[in-house]
């Protein structure tokens, strides 16, 4: 599957897995948060890199040992569900999480810039949506008023 990572279209090297046998086979699995919470020692020992898929009603404090994760995927069940933006910003700024932060679910082109500004660097677009059109979204604005994850200085400290 193709995804956008760091503003480039790439083949996904991770796979979403749900049941145990699939998990064991994958080199880089993305497992549901509940699964990870249950058997994280096994997972972290067995795989080169572990990703976790986090439902939209969870907070960073619900993800144990998050520094050991190579990838955190935040779910967007609906494109209007804005919780993931705050969760991403908290992960980057408060928890200093440096791994891949991926938006999954109902992810649309017109959200990519805001998502990126909140700390996401990877995007699984909603099936059927063109990825190349998505790439244009990142450069639609050349100025931003607020502090964000890229630059903690609001415009009034740069003006």
């Amino acid at each position: 599957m193709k995804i956008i990572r760091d503003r480039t279209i790439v083949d996904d090297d991770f796979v979403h897995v749900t049941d145990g046998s699939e998990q064991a086979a994958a080199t880089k699995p993305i497992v549901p948060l509940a699964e990870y919470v249950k058997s994280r020692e096994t997972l972290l020992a067995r795989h080169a890199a572990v990703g976790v898929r986090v439902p939209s009603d969870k907070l960073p404090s619900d993800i144990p040992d998050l520094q050991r994760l190579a990838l955190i995927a935040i779910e967007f069940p609906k494109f209007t569900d804005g919780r993931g933006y705050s969760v991403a910003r908290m992960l980057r700024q408060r928890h200093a999480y440096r791994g891949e932060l991926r938006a999954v679910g109902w992810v649309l082109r017109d959200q990519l810039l805001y998502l990126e500004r909140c700390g996401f660097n990877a995007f699984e677009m909603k099936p059927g949506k063109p990825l190349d059109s998505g790439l244009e979204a990142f450069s639609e604005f050349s100025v931003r008023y607020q502090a964000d994850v890229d630059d903690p200085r609001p415009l009034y400290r740069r003006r």
Partner: protein
Amino acid sequence: MYQYDDYDRRIITERAQQFRGQVSRRLSGEITEEEFKPIRLQNGLYMQLHAYMLRVAIPYGLLSSTQVRKLAHIARTYDRGYAHLTTRQNIQYNWPKLTDVPSILDELASVEMHAVQTSGNCVRNITADHFAGIARDELEDPRPYCEILRQWSTFHPEFANLPRKFKIAITGAPGEDRAAVRFHDIGLRIVENAAGERGFEVLVGGGLGRTPVIAEVVREFLPKRHFLSFIESILRVYNLHGRRDNKFKARIKILVTALGIAEFRRRVEEDWEASRTPELELTDAEVARVSAFFAPPPYESLPATDRVEGIVLGRDRELGNWVRNNVFSHKVPGYSAVVVSVKKQGIPPGDVSDTQMDAIASLADRYSFGHVVVTHTQNLVLPDVKTAELSKLHAELRALDLGEANANKLTDLITCPGLDYCDLANARSIPLSLEIAERFDRIDYLNDVGDVSIKISGCINACGHHHVGNIGILGIDKRGEEFYQLMLGGSPGNDASIGKILGRALAQDEIVDAVEKVLGRYLEIRESTDERFLDTVRRVGFDPFKVAVYGTADPLEAAGDAA
């Protein structure tokens, strides 16, 4: 007033380009109608019963004469020759063609205006006291902080998909709240602490709609430099924990009520401790930069005259009434603030025509340093008029049909669009407001009754703010017929209160009579002419008014029915 620099201009220009692209991707089918809706809303485009409506932002209500002329031009060129002032100091066009909208946005951008974040589940236009910067009772001008908040909220990446819309209002006048801060999601009051330091009292969780709530204090004193980081924390707690399962329970007031203010405060303070960064602190340089745009205009030094009293008592009764009702005191000697009432018999409250707007722009240039302010009561203010020129100004206003002497009086009504325009309505509200205006349009009666507000909504969504009317009227549906509930005792100000239903709902042919009976009883029982309608209601309670309207105070007979 604030002037865009290159940064501000680029942001608005790039937004217009972005929206053009979004419209064409909608037309090509890449974006579905459902996905397009929040995009359209956050660019000010609302779908009404008959057509699209475009809501243009007027930050804290302040306009230059150039902007007013542009708004007139848009009304003439792209709409039906009028526009509508809203209760949040914005302006709406009710009949734009979708294909004209990009051109309208370009026209607006040419005078540093836009329509962004005037609808949708985001931080909306920041509103303020309409006498900001000129009120005698003001501690400090709130507009620099409004502008700083406007910039902070414009395209804030974290808070563009909130559970529901989010409204912020600021006042710098401790004595009188003209911005209804207690009925906003966040209300800010500039206050001074015991050490003489200025900061904000932060209120949270107020609102009208289906569940009216008076905001509670979440922070008694917030040093100014922390105000952006603190507001971010309030929004973050709301964004993460506000309800998203039911649109009618999604406002922050529901979250604050459910958690209780103590727990809500604890969560905000906890987030704030963890999230505030030194960079987010406001700098003195930024406050100074923005404040410079709101420096007082070049006032002349004039003697403090008592001419106002002279005019009120003078021979020209029409002028005297207008000065008494529509002219307000100004902090600079020799100047006055003038409310230009657009509430004229036969005109839906808030509507202004293109020719009126052009004329007001010209009056602003000649009498008031080129500035106009929109009030949340859907009128206009000329903020800096020389007291000595009031009678000349009044003569010009009268010639334009804008000389109504009814500010804060019975016929200065607030009304939502109601059944004529709105598909959620239970009842008509504009025709009712016109009928009320016609019934009571006698200046001696208005003066006798004094300050009283009537606010009308066509359904429980409360766009007409009926909960905070001294007299509130709510349209309900009773077996398919339009009925109205009569409420008394609401107030949006420092003495905030939510009106209560007087008794059973009234039919269309009963409601105006009922208002007249209520007012008649007030005139009989008030202690003196100084006791306002609201004070009388608070002093005597509802029984005398129930007797006046229903002939009995019997709770069964006058019982309110659940709507």
